């Protein structure tokens, strides 16, 4: 994972504080050069994986916990596993991205409506919070009945899981413009729409991208959970994991989990990067 750490503070540059800027840059660079520390942890984790696998093998239950290299082999080279895992990844990605797109549109739309009046926000926001506490396992059968047990149903599960961070972050962002900025618009007689478009939305962008990054991560979870709970239609990673595990195909099951995790991380990183590209120039997304 690459962390962008050597960026100097342009504000300090422009105001002529060269010394401070350099000092700041150096401090960041020192922090950045610690990449080997997580790498060390990774090596330790792989070692731990081998250790546990060794114990399981000694007890004659090696199929329950495969060696890491077996998992890697299943993930990249074993034909029987590969033909199942990657099409499943594609199906899950399709569900996740469709669900995420719906969450983005609905989330931003809902937040925009809520920000129009205090009473609308007060009336509807509690339901957005409830959405977050919804036991998805319990409502899955209901979703299956209404939307079907394949693509549409899985998208709805994904949507329900990833909607809240979109609503909450957009709402927070739309309220981020401070009083003086709002009054600046008010003094020019700017309409509500103009204020929304030229002030509130731009000011909300950093929050919206934080929401998007979180929602994206959750959409992957949603797609996999939805796949496992509804289980029809084109099989995704959730189905792959369940099937391999039920057949006690340890390396294949672990490989599916590994690919699902990597997919989740990749989505999180890509959307994080997207946010930095969009607003990083003027806002430090961290």
């Amino acid at each position: 994972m690459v962390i962008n750490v050597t960026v100097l503070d342009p504000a300090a540059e422009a105001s002529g504080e060269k010394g401070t800027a350099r000092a700041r840059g150096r401090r960041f660079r020192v922090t950045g050069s610690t990449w080997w520390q997580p790498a060390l942890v990774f090596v330790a984790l792989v070692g731990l994986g081998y250790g546990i696998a060794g114990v399981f093998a000694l007890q004659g239950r090696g199929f329950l916990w495969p060696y890491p290299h077996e998992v890697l082999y299943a993930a990249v080279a074993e034909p029987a596993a590969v033909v199942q895992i990657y099409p499943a990844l594609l199906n899950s990605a399709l569900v996740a991205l469709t669900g995420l797109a719906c969450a983005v549109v609905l989330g931003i739309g809902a937040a925009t409506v809520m920000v129009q009046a205090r009473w609308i926000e007060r009336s509807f926001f509690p339901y957005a919070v409830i959405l977050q506490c919804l036991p998805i396992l319990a409502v899955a059968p209901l979703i299956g009945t209404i939307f079907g047990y394949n693509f549409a149903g899985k998208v709805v599960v994904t949507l329900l899981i990833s909607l809240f961070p979109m609503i909450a972050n957009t709402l927070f962002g739309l309220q981020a413009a401070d009083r003086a900025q709002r009054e600046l618009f008010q003094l020019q007689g700017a309409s509500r729409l103009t204020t929304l478009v030229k002030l509130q939305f731009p000011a909300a962008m950093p929050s919206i991208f934080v929401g998007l990054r979180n929602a994206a991560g959750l959409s992957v979870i949603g797609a996999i959970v939805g796949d496992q709970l509804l289980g029809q239609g084109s099989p995704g990673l959730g189905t792959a994991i369940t099937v391999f595990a039920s057949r006690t195909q340890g390396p294949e099951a672990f490989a599916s989990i590994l690919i699902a995790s990597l997919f989740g991380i990749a989505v999180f990183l890509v959307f994080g990067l997207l946010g930095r590209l969009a607003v990083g120039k003027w806002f430090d997304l961290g």
Partner: protein
Amino acid sequence: MTLTASPPTSAGVGAATLLDFSDVAMRFDTGTVALEGVDLTVRRGEFVTVVGPSGCGKSTLLRIASGLETATAGTASVSTKRIGYVFQDATLLPWRTVQRNVELLAELHGESSDERRRKAAAAIELVGLTGFEKNLPKQLSGGMRMRTSLARSLTLDPELFLFDEPFGALDEITRERLNDELLRLFTEQQFAGLFITHSVSEAVYLSTKVVVMSGRPGRIVKAFDVPFPMPRDPDIRYSAEFADLVGEVSHALREGHR
């Protein structure tokens, strides 16, 4: 808009009255009485500065003048729509460059992009920010941000210019430089200025008239005409007459505080 220099005229009884407050009071819903019996006139070519203890209603006075608040008693009449308002902090939009920030007001008034660019370029030149058009606010020093904010208001070609402690957060040297720039703008543009500050010497240096307010509820306790001619000589700050007037205003301020 004309950002060209017009010859300085001394404000007299004949000059247009742009702001006229008569017996203005402000009582908020919370019960706080911020202003009481305020009479204040600002004519074209006058630069009036208000000093007063914190919380006495100075910002409220400006907010009434700008139309952000409505007085609860008395009459507050402002006879122009071209009002510049400079807030305590620069209030720039951080995602816009200097150029686009300065263009904002003309943009909100639906002016063409050619017109906007022309006005912004003229205003940016007036405040001495040429060459920084493409910078984002975070790439500017505090003083440069304030200049950007000034330039943004200048695009309105204001007849009445309201300032709410615009230089309060700046260091002494930057503040003095901006004071000189503001005086230059004032002599060139001949607007009517209403300026709020905590610094008595800034008040005396900038204005044609200094108004002292009492603690809450704010009323005007004393007004001083500043006799020094415009354009003002920066060295006036070190003269005995200047020090005397600063002393008198400070004294009135302390009296009103009790």
